[in-house]
């Protein structure tokens, strides 16, 4: 949930996806769901000489599970806020797992 919320704050911003097939795609983030599937607008594939395969696409949907990295716009991110959210999420998870052993499986 943490990173879903985080990526929601980046909607409308330019990001670069590095996929697990070594393709890198730059574009404007238009949508993100709970699986971190993303929609990008006005895409540009890096190294277009090597990867001309997707030149006829402008807007795409990318499955979250095929993403390796996402290059983020540093200026647009409040890293302190993100660390805060991380601590809260970690604490919440810990409380859950201590209170109910069944939730340890998450």
């Amino acid at each position: 949930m943490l990173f879903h919320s985080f990526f929601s704050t980046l909607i409308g911003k330019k990001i670069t996806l590095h996929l697990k097939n070594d393709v890198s795609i730059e574009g404007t983030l238009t949508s993100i769901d709970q699986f971190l599937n993303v929609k990008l607008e006005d895409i540009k594939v890096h190294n277009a000489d090597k990867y001309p395969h997707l030149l006829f696409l402008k807007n795409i949907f990318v499955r979250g599970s095929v993403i390796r990295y996402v290059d983020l716009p540093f200026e647009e991110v409040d890293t302190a806020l993100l660390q805060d959210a991380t601590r809260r999420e970690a604490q919440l998870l810990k409380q859950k797992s201590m209170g109910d052993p069944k939730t340890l499986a998450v």
Partner: protein
Amino acid sequence: MTERVAVLTNDGRILIGILEGLDIKTNLLLKDTIEKVFSIDSEVENIELGLYIIRGDSITLLGPVDKELEDSIKWDEIRCQPIKPIVH
């Protein structure tokens, strides 16, 4: 829905067809599907496949084919390796 969509699969294939249907798991039903086969020593080949169901979890990415962009591409001049498969 009569939109032509392009799908890149996890094994690096590119399939283009008319989107007839889809479900919550992004399984797709494509009509009049063709596969675009890229090769380093011959021009792009279009293989007719017909009606296709593609499992959602084998899809890397998909998007509507932009007609303008498609027409601007000199397909007979393109020579390139196929896209590598997804390695988790």
